[in-house]
């Protein structure tokens, strides 16, 4: 995967995470139940095509990349919430925000900013 392609894919991932996961969870009403929250997460995860495409395209090649590993770890932590019995909304948001931060940090590193 070229540097430019990697940057583009990271941008896609940021966009999808924001649109399909963080924003819908943030916009749930304060009275939302754990089921509402789980449903929002599950629906969002189905939509985050960018991550699946990203993994399919370059996971093997990037396996030793620190940035990739860090993102992968944060994604794994966030995905747990889709099946969790007790759902802590603040922690859900923090975990997905951590994914975004990891992606952004990696993007900055790749872009050489």
């Amino acid at each position, binding site marked *: 995967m070229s540097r430019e392609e990697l940057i583009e894919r990271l941008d896609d991932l940021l966009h999808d995470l*924001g*649109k399909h996961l963080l924003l819908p969870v*943030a916009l749930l009403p304060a009275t939302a139940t754990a089921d509402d929250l789980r449903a929002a997460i599950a629906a969002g995860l189905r939509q985050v095509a960018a991550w699946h495409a990203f993994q399919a395209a370059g996971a093997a090649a990037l396996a030793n990349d620190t940035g990739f590993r860090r993102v992968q770890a944060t994604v794994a932590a966030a995905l747990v919430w889709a099946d969790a019995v007790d759902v802590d909304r603040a922690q859900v948001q923090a975990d997905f925000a951590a994914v975004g931060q990891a992606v952004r940090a990696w993007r900055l590193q790749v872009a050489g900013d």
Partner: protein
Amino acid sequence: MTERRSDPVRVLLVDDGPRYQQTLAALDNVQLLSIDGQLRAPDGKAALDWLDGRRAEVDVVLLDVQFEVPDDRLLPLEVGASPRKTRRFQGVAILREIRRRWPDLPVVLLTEWQDLSLADAAADVSATPVTYFAGAVDADTLRIRIWSARAEATQPLEDQGVLWGRDPAMRALRHRLAVLARGGLPIVLEGETGTGKSHLARAFIHPNSGRRGPFVAIDLATVPAELVPATLFGALRGSYTGSVADRKGAFEVAHKGTLFLDEIQNVPLDIQKQLLRVLQEGRVQPLGAVAETEVDVKLVVAANVALADLVAAGRFRRDLYMRLSPATRVTVPALRDRRQDYALLLRQLTAACAERPAVRALLGEVASGMGLRRGAGLRLVVGADMRHPPAGDALELAMPDAAWRAITQHPFPGNLREMAMLAENLASFTLFSAAEAARAGVELHHGRLQIDSGLVVELLSTAPAVEAVAPVDDRVPVRVAPAATLGQCAVAVERQVMEALFVRCRGDLGAMAELLLGDRGRARAVQLRLNQLGLSVRHLRADGDR
């Protein structure tokens, strides 16, 4: 249009998928408009087609950034952009087109993350008025953002004696000033002479500050340097030559009220230090006094130059500048940047000049001869309005098309002050001729007088010869170093020039385009050139912030 508090905000959602629709449909006080049976427009073309006939039905547009739609549904992003990049920033392309067609339509770009590449791609439109980024939001924040966008766009054309007009920059400025007026920090107003800074302070900021004390205005351009300390801080009798009585300073007089210091750039450096101390401690020490007096004022300062430039030039103290809350400084736009408001402003200024005694006397004389009621006002009639017969409730001054064209092309270097004088001169000359004719026995019945086109051209051509272009110094020092080729040398020089102008124009690519190309609308060309030179707008802005 007036704000209807209870009405839901009518939102046109532009999104290629249903995700935002599902999320937004749950928000109170938000009504997603139906487009061909869906609660969203699936792409830019569909949105623009729909808006073409139904703009009035929309309060706010909510716009996604990335659109996965077929090639034939994409709006072009920029020359040479790949289909992928065009999809990635399709929201920016749609926003540009909306800004071109409906500059006053509020648009909220829906982007959750701090999108680094979007910041660059949308640099030319992100800073335009009524354009917002949703940012990291919760439901309440997004609702407030949407509601504020509508409120800003639907505020009255005129209120509290200020002509805000339709210009989006002025409407945004009203909102900003309303917020700043309530706060406790100083307000910095920048803008060319004649843009109405003093009037804004008196008519809008002070009444909206919630302060019950007086409004005190000091024009520092008219105060001799040696009298500035006594004028601002007060003085005891005998404390300086010619001081024959105790004198209260402006800070003390404005206690619990608003102090407006016009042309703050004229304050000498040594007195700036004293001013800084007053701001820091909230106390003044009159000349010759031992005791200090506590003062509580809302400070508003105005300058017709960029104070940041004076700081850079060592002519204004940095610490005082920082104390003035420069992050929230407000730039009042030049009149030539509000051309869509020319007709409204000239109408209002014409009506207002009828209150001046000289004009009122002439108006009374002519109006009574025409059989108009006593106290009839003055109304300017422009363009299509002239097709209607005079309404009879005011004496009408009709502006010929040719004269109106000349006015719309005039840059008004003296800004509102110059336009007010033009209105008064047009009224005086037209009424004077009519009054003379009436005295000579000419019967006037029509209720409408034609303005002489030649008079308009003459008044415009003898307008004060003030520099029409924004006061940006176009001289840039460059350092030339040997390079392998002349081409490389030229690029190095151009980079320095562009960087310096970016700083001088404070990141306003439109101002750079005006300076370099004579056309503010070509900001995009400037941005592309910066990119070609390897200069990132984001980096330059970050450098500027530091």
